[in-house]
């Protein structure tokens, strides 16, 4: 029996496959313009591995969870991220997930989500913000984080992503070094996470999930800002899909 978790995020779609108790495969692809399309592609990929509706239990999560017509059940990404983080870390924790369109803080106690906080509806402090800022600097997010390590402390004060972008453009215009701007961009994200996390409260270790956990300099700067060690693991990006698959057990 296969247990499949499909996490259709606003930016990336992640899939995890369990063969009985064993996690055998994780893959991801850009969500693109249509979550319906991407869910079809996922099913075709699964079929090639001889996995179909009859020999598996499929749980869909993420913002596009309703666009997976072949799913047995849909569960929100909050519950799934909590479950997945607990699986990856092996203990209760406070999860930080910086997603494409929202940032979440999730408390996991006894392998269950007991409480969570999400940022308000704008893009401030989300992955989308980082993506846009990196674009303005004509680099990718990993390079942005790398540069930020070398930069001086400056602050981007706009809470709004659109205004922050014009702030960045005016800093570029003034000839501010790219490292400093990068540092300012990262600071604005880590500062937002800081307030969300401390307003929410911390229980146990802090575990970062989502695509950003693969970027070491980012994890380093986030730990520094929070004044606490932030743990991440290579599979952190799949916490949502792993959690979804586990919810099918």
């Amino acid at each position: 029996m296969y247990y499949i978790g499909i996490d259709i995020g606003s930016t990336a779609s992640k899939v995890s496959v369990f063969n009985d108790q064993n996690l055998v495969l994780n893959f991801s692809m850009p969500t693109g313009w249509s979550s319906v399309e991407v869910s079809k592609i996922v099913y075709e990929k699964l079929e090639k591995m001889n996995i179909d509706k009859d020999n598996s239990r499929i749980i869909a999560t993420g913002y596009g969870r309703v666009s997976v017509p072949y799913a047995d059940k849909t569960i929100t990404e909050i519950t799934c991220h909590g479950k997945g983080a607990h699986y990856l870390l092996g203990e209760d924790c406070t999860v930080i997930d910086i997603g494409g369109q929202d940032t979440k803080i999730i408390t996991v106690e006894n392998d269950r989500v007991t409480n969570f906080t999400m940022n308000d509806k704008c893009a401030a402090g989300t992955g989308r913000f980082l993506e846009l800022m990196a674009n303005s600097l004509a680099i990718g997010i990993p390079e942005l984080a790398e540069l930020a390590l070398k930069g001086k402390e400056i602050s981007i004060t706009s809470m709004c992503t659109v205004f922050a972008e014009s702030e960045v453009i005016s800093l570029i215009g003034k000839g501010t070094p790219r490292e400093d701007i990068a540092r300012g961009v990262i600071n604005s994200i880590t500062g937002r996470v800081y307030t969300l996390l401390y307003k929410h409260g911390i229980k146990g270790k802090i575990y970062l999930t989502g695509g950003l956990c693969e970027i070491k300099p980012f994890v380093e700067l986030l730990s520094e800002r929070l004044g606490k060690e932030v743990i991440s693991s290579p599979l952190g990006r799949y916490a949502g899909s792993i959690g979804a698959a586990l919810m099918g057990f």
Partner: protein
Amino acid sequence: MRPVTMEEIEGLRGLNSVKVKEAHEEGKKVVGMYCMFSPSEIAIAAGAIPVTLCGTAQAPIEDAEKELPRNLCPLIKSSYGFAITDKCPYFFFSDVLLAETTCDGKKKMYELMGKIKPMHIMNLPQTSEGEDSLESWHKEMVKFKAYLEETFGVEITEEKLRDAIKLMNRERDAMKRLHKLNAHKPAPLSGMDMMLAQWLKGFNVDKEYGISLIEKLIEELEERIEKGIFAFDESAPRILLTGCPIGSGSEKVLRALEEAGASVVALENCTGYKPLDVMVDEDPDKDPLLALAEKYLKTPCSCMTPNNGRFDLIKRLAEEYDVDGVVDLTWVACHTYAIESFSLKNFVQDELGLPFIQIETDYSDSDTGQVKTRVEAFLETIEKKSATV
């Protein structure tokens, strides 16, 4: 299946807008109000019709933003937008408006609105505690009575005041008994229908007819309870909804909760139970205006400091309705409720031991997906809790 009386209650919507026009044409006076602090009894005693004014729909907000700042709470913008666009029949037919100095946003908006129609403003104390507050609020009742007497050229006798108090207490009592039916497990009425029935009462031109419809609904629901017909089954998580007022057009969080399978059993907000909790004292030896001052000052609104009454009420309702979680709705830019939410979270989680979520949103549909995710995730945490029991 929905109780049949709900259709008649929904019919009040069309009926009341016609009735208010007819009343106006017959030369009856109409007093438009916005808030649960407004003593409608004094308007009734003046032979006028007190009506709630519109302020729960997204449509007029764009027009309101031509004059008001965008980052203001949607309730204030909607109320003002309805007023300047003449889209609210109750506002249109109001002879005078009654307003109170509640939150900063409202009282500054009222300065602008007062230019459109005659408006009386009652100076609400910032605290409900202490003799000084009661004394000053009592004086405001005296002033409002004098204002209506002079404006409408009528005499408000003590007898008329006492009659009006009795009438409004009967309405409150009926509404309260209706709300309390949902303490039954499972709840006989959906939160959506409860909200509608409670919200529509404010527009009732004919109070007696309104009360008789609610009595009819209560009877129907009692029969349903006996037959075992409920709005939700036993497994639905029972939710207490608190925070900013909601009405038709601004019910999106309530709707999202019930569409996700929750049964919203207690509405603690001003459109729900909050104004029903305390009756006006009918003691014949008490000055009726003082009795009104006492009752309205006890409204546990976040514009009061401190606002301990709200916490007490939530605790009481959470126990009485045996709820599984508390949802605090705060409209964007409603500072008083938004700030209070932090204390409420600690109170609900630590003292009541219940799951809590604050949802901040506005009247628009722009964040429907995010609200849905929050609500579903919140209910998932509750389901898992009950599953372990």
